């Protein structure tokens, strides 16, 4: 592609270089730190994918657990008959399909109704899977045995994160990215300037859902024994929202800023105060919403607001786009 603005090119280079360095991490550490890194990478991928949709549309989705579970089960069901890459592909299709259906069903829902719908979705899917397994499967769970080590999971999640970032960057440079910014500003105006708001929403939700499903698929081997409770755990959805909001969703890399510290601190808390974890997390949620409504990155941006003569991200995007 030609005509990429220099600052974006620098960011792209820095990001790829950073990912390359991170790829060597499993060679220098193992055990606890590698495990923690897998968690960080997992949430980096999911939160960024979540923010692809929820950032520009301002629709808070609690469906992450649903997509994650669908991905996990894509692996659990077919692990004995298909090679792992094929399972990833199934997760992509299943996640995108589910997101498209949800998108179509919720087109007219806004605000809190959308939140509740997506929250219910994960619960519904979990219950359906439980019902199917108890009535037709004979057991509640499924075994997933692979030769994957934490190192493999880490590399796969790192690759996924890179792909999510590249996709987000490409979307921002496209008509779809501009459409989403207009929708986020004023949906009525968006429709009247000719934006197919429904289509934009659904495409983006499908992309976001597919990525989260892949994350679930990659994590399946770690659980070994897959149950609906674990795969469709609503906690996944809440953690994703908290971390992404902590980082901020205005920039592609915003959620990442929230994921790294939050995962580390949560790991410490759940290790030392296992009984108080939920309470502490709830308080953290409140604190983030009250103190940092735009996240850390949004707050920093407000502090160091650029001169108005500076070109905004979009102007350069459209100008150099094509």
């Amino acid at each position: 592609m030609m005509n990429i603005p220099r600052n974006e090119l620098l960011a792209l280079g820095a990001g790829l270089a950073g990912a390359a360095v991170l790829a060597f991490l499993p060679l220098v550490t193992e055990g606890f730190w590698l495990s923690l890194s897998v968690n960080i990478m997992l949430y980096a991928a999911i939160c960024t994918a979540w923010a692809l949709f929820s950032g520009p549309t301002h629709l808070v989705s609690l469906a992450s657990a649903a997509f994650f579970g669908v991905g996990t089960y894509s692996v659990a069901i077919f692990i004995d008959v298909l090679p792992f890459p094929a399972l990833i592909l199934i997760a992509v299709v299943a996640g995108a399909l589910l997101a498209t259906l949800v998108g179509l069903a919720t087109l007219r829902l806004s605000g809190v109704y959308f939140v509740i719908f997506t929250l219910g979705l994960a619960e519904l899917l979990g219950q359906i899977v439980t019902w199917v397994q108890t009535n037709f499967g004979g057991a509640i769970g499924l075994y997933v045995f692979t030769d994957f080590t934490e190192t493999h999971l880490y590399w796969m999640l790192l690759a996924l994160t890179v792909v999510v970032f590249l996709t987000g960057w490409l979307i921002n440079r496209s008509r779809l990215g501009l459409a989403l910014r207009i929708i986020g500003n004023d949906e009525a105006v968006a429709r009247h300037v000719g934006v197919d708001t429904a289509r934009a929403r659904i495409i983006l939700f499908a992309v976001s859902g597919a990525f989260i499903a892949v994350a679930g698929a990659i994590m399946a081997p770690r659980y070994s024994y897959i149950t609906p409770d674990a795969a469709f755990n609503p906690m996944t959805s809440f953690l994703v929202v908290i971390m992404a909001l902590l980082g901020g969703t205005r920039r592609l890399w915003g959620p990442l800023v929230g994921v790294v510290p939050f995962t580390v601190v949560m790991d410490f808390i759940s290790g030392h105060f296992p009984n108080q974890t939920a309470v502490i997390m709830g308080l953290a949620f409140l604190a983030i919403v009250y103190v940092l409504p735009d996240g850390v990155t949004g707050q920093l941006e407000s502090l160091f607001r650029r001169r108005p003569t500076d070109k905004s991200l979009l102007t350069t995007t459209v100008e150099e786009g094509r």
Partner: protein
Amino acid sequence: MSVPLLTINRVRKAFGGLVAVNDVSFAVAKGELLGLIGPNGSGKTTMLNLISGALSPTSGNILLSGQPIAGRPAHKIARIGVARTFQLVRVLPSMSALENVVAGAVFGHNRLWGAEALALARDLLERVGLKGREEVPVAAMTYIDQKRIELARALAGNPHVLLLDEWLAGLNPSELRVGIELIREISAQGRTIIMVEHVMDAIRSLCSRCVVMNSGTKIADGRSADVLADPEVVRAYLGDDDA
């Protein structure tokens, strides 16, 4: 009148028992600047909403160059070539002036992208009098400047028909003069415009023809001077005693 560009044919919009637009018909020729006037609540804005696709008519049809557009989604109608401004100005607050106008150029009837969209947006901002303020966040702009942005955004789509919903409302006398000149210029360039307006001076000086609505019904349609002198129109505005 030549072949009409836009034909409104027995269009009706009922909200439950309330008939906001009652079997209204009129046609607009290419290049015409039509005033759509009437007292508050007479159904003018509803009429614009029906043309732009914000609402879908209960019955009747609307043709743009012979193509039926009534009841189609707003984004499709925008692409076919109808652009509008809003009664209460609606800019995209988190975006710059230039980006606001680019939005119209990229997704409207024009469907431009990249340098072309930007060049057009810059050009239009200059035309509406905002040269040099391309990067100013619109939230920081005055009311009339936001209205200019809205106008430029609508024009950026290069629409067949431009709908102005009380675009001159709320302007002070000197701004009003500037606004009227701006609309006159755009009309002189051949753009077909329907303007809903309460400012009668503007209607008199801009529109050669007017359609008057009252309680959802069309009560007059003709040369502005004649229509404004029509006793029924005067009665609609001022009430029986003053007629």
